[in-house]
């Protein structure tokens, strides 16, 4: 069964330099991805980049994934707010 750690590693492999935190119970997962490469991309494109990194797993083993994508700048702004 796929684990949050696997998801973290797959995303980080597909998006080199990305910082990923992932959680979940083996069927439903959530991940926050902070990546410089998201700059200038809209949310759909950002999520598509993450989905691409997960490839076939996204079609089969990962039943559901809640995704949040942030640029490093957005992440810092958010951290400052909370």
């Amino acid at each position, binding site marked *: 069964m796929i684990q949050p750690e696997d998801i973290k590693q797959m995303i980080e492999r597909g998006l080199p330099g990305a910082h990923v935190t992932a959680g979940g119970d083996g069927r439903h997962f959530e991940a926050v991805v902070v990546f410089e490469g998201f700059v200038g991309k809209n*949310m*759909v494109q950002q*999520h*598509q980049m993450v*989905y691409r990194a997960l490839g076939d797993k*996204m*079609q089969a083993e990962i039943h*559901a994934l*809640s*995704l949040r994508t942030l640029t490093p700048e957005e992440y810092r702004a958010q951290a400052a707010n909370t």
Partner: protein
Amino acid sequence: MNVQDKIKQQIASDKIVLYMKGTPQFPQCGFSAKSVELLKASGAEFSTVDVLADPDIRQGIKEYSNWPTIPQLYINGEFVGGCDILTELFQKGELQRMVAKTK
């Protein structure tokens, strides 16, 4: 008509179209249910397509948008996103603005 043509026709059939699992009255998945709620809270009038009713559409819509999950929202023929993006757009008030513009 092939599946992709059928999908194009569905997306063009209304200003706001939500591909979901189940129906607004009986959603079959939490993410679909939440998307319906967000649209209602935004004051949207919308059509839905139940992907569970047609396996070809269920697979075809993923290929159409290059997006691996359901639900999927389309406004004026444009793919807007899935449940996470709808949630974020709603929190920013952006979804409400997009809905208002369709009226």
